[in-house]
C-alpha cells in the first residue's frame, strides 16, 4: 500500500522534466503563434525588415546572423576541441591528463558573460585596429563562441573516445600501425557517432548563447557581408528588445523564440539519434571496416 504510493509519487516526479518541456512549449507557442499567424510564417522567416514599431517582423537577418556566427564558432572550436580531446584521451601521459582534464572541466563553468567581457576588452579592440570595421562583428562573436563551446565538445568527445574498446587499438597496433594511424583509421571512425553528437551539442550551445554574443556581435539588424560586419543573432534579438517590448512586438520576440526552439530541438534530436544508432552498428562490421581502411591506408 505504502510502496504503491511511493511508486506513484516517484512516477509523477519522473515526468517533471517532460512536464516542464511541455509547459515551456505551450507558453512560448501561445505567446508567439499569433504574430506568426498574422505575419505569415514565410514572411516572418524570410522577411528582411525588422521594424517592430511599425509592426513589420522579418527575422531573416537574425537567422543568417545566428547561422554564420554558429558556423564560425564551429570552425574555430571544433578542430581545437577535437585535437584537445584526442590528446587527452589517447596521447597524454597519465600525469598530464590528470592535470589537464580537471582544468578544462573547471573552466567549463566560467560564466558566459565573462567570455563576452573578454571579447569586449580584448578581442573587439584588436579587430577594430587590425582588421577594420567597427569591432563588434561576426568574427568576434565566432571566436568567443568557439572558445565557449570547447569545454562541452571536449568533454563529450573524450567520453566517446574512451568508449572505444581497447582491443581495437591493440588489434591495430598489432598489425603494425603507428599510434597516429591507429587514431585516425580505427579510433576516430569507431567513435564517430559520439564525436558527431559532441559537435551537434556544441552547435546547440553556440546557437543558444545570448549574453556573450550581445556583448561582442554589434547587434545591428542587417545581413552581414564581411566577417568584420556587426551582426544580430536570434537570441540577441529576443534579449535586447524584451526589456521594453509590448503587444505585437513582444509576441514577435516569442515567435523568434519559437524558431530558435524548433532549431535547437531538431539539433538535440539529431544528437541523441547520432549517439544512439551506432551501438547497434559499431560492433563487428565497424571493426572490420576499420581494419579494411587500415590495410588500404597501408597500401
Amino acid at each position, binding site marked *: 500500500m505504502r510502496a504503491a504510493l511511493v511508486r506513484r509519487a516517484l512516477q509523477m516526479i519522473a515526468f517533471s*522534466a517532460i512536464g516542464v518541456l511541455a509547459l515551456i512549449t505551450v507558453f512560448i507557442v501561445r505567446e508567439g503563434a499569433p504574430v506568426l499567424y498574422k505575419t505569415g510564417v514565410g514572411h516572418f522567416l524570410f522577411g528582411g525588415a525588422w521594424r517592430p514599431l511599425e509592426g513589420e517582423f522579418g527575422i531573416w537577418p537574425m537567422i543568417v546572423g545566428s547561422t554564420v556566427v554558429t558556423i564560425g564558432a564551429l570552425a574555430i572550436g571544433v578542430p581545437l576541441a577535437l585535437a584537445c580531446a584526442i590528446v587527452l584521451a589517447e596521447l597524454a601521459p597519465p600525469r598530464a591528463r590528470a592535470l589537464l582534464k580537471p582544468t578544462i572541466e*573547471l573552466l567549463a563553468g566560467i560564466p558566459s558573460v*565573462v567570455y563576452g567581457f*573578454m571579447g569586449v576588452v580584448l578581442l573587439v579592440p584588436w579587430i577594430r585596429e587590425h582588421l577594420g570595421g567597427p569591432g563588434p562583428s561576426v568574427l568576434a562573436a565566432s571566436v568567443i563562441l568557439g572558445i565557449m563551446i570547447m569545454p562541452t565538445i571536449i568533454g563529450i568527445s573524450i567520453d566517446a573516445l574512451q568508449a572505444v574498446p581497447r582491443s581495437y587499438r591493440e588489434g591495430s597496433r598489432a598489425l603494425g600501425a603507428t599510434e597516429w594511424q591507429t587514431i585516425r583509421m580505427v579510433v576516430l571512425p569507431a567513435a564517430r557517432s559520439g564525436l558527431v553528437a559532441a559537435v551537434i551539442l556544441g552547435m546547440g550551445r553556440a546557437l543558444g548563447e545570448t549574453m556573450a554574443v550581445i556583448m561582442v556581435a554589434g547587434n545591428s539588424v542587417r545581413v552581414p557581408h564581411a566577417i568584420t560586419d556587426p551582426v544580430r543573432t536570434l537570441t540577441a534579438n529576443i534579449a535586447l528588445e524584451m526589456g521594453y517590448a509590448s503587444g505585437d512586438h513582444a509576441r514577435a520576440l516569442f515567435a523568434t523564440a519559437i524558431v530558435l526552439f524548433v532549431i535547437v530541438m531538431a539539433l538535440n534530436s539529431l544528437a541523441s539519434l547520432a549517439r544512439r544508432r551506432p551501438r547497434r552498428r559499431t560492433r563487428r562490421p565497424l571493426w572490420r571496416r576499420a581494419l579494411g581502411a587500415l590495410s588500404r591506408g597501408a597500401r
Partner: protein
Amino acid sequence: MSTTSPSLGRMSPPLVAPRVTQIVAKTLLWAATALTVGVLVFIVAFVLRRGLPYVTGDFLTEAPRDMGRAGGILPMIVGTLYVTAVAVAVATPLGLGTAIYLTEYTRGGFLTRVVRFGAECLAGVPSIIFGLFGFVFFVITLGMGWSVLAGGLTLAFMILPTVIRTAEEAVKSVPPQYREVAYTLGASKWQAIVKVVLPSALPGILTGIILGIGRSLSETAAVIFTAGSSLKMPVSLFDPARTMSVHFYLLAREGISMPKAYATAAVLVLAILVINATAYGLMHRFMKRFS
C-alpha cells in the same frame, strides 16, 4: 607498415613515412591542446588579475552606490545565494525522484526512454528561452512579479536535467548487491533505497547539485527577465533581486564602471572555480570508491 618493411614497402611506398606523419600530427595536436588550455587559463588569470585588487572587504559587505559605480555588491551576493537556494531546493527533489524512478522502478522500457529524451531536450533549451518562459509563466501568469521566487523556479527548471543525469549515474553505480543485502536484512524496497542506495550515491548526487549551483550562479539570460535587476537587498521570496552575473553584465555592457565590473567578475569566477573544484573532487572520490 613501417618503411623498413621490405614487402610492404615494395607494394607501394607511402609518400611520407608514417613515422613522419605521426610526428607532424602529434605536434599539431599538442599545439592545439596547448592553445586551448592556454586560452582558457588566460581568461581566468586575466579576470582574476584585473579584478582581485578591487575585491576588498568593503566591496563584499557594502551596498552599491550610484548605480554600481561605487560601493560593493552585498545585495547581489545575497540575491545570488537566495535565487540559487530556491533553484536547488526545487530541482533536487525533482531530479533525485526522477533518477530513483528511472533506476529503481523501471527496467528500461518505453517510459524510461521518453523521460530521458525529455531531460535531454530540456538540457538543450537555450537559457534565453527559459528566461522568456519564466517571464510569461511565473512573472506574469502566476503573478509573482520579478522576484527571487520566479528567478529561482526558472533556474530550477534549467538545472533539472543536470541534476537528473548526475543523480541517475550515481544511483546506477551503486552495486545491485547492496540492495539485495538490505532486502535480506528485512528492508522494504523504499527502506533499501533510503538507507543503502542513497547514502552510497550521495557524493555523486551532491556533485550534480553542485554543478547545478555553478550553472545557476553563472546564468544571466534566464534570471534577468525573471528575478529582475533591482539594486535593493532582497528580503522576502517575492522581492526582486539582481544576481552577480546580471550585475556584472549590466556593469560591463553599459560601461558603468570597469573596475567594479572586473571585481565582480573576479568574485564570480572565483566562486565558480571553488564550486566546480568541489564537485570535481567529490566525483573523483566517488568514482574511486566503486572501481
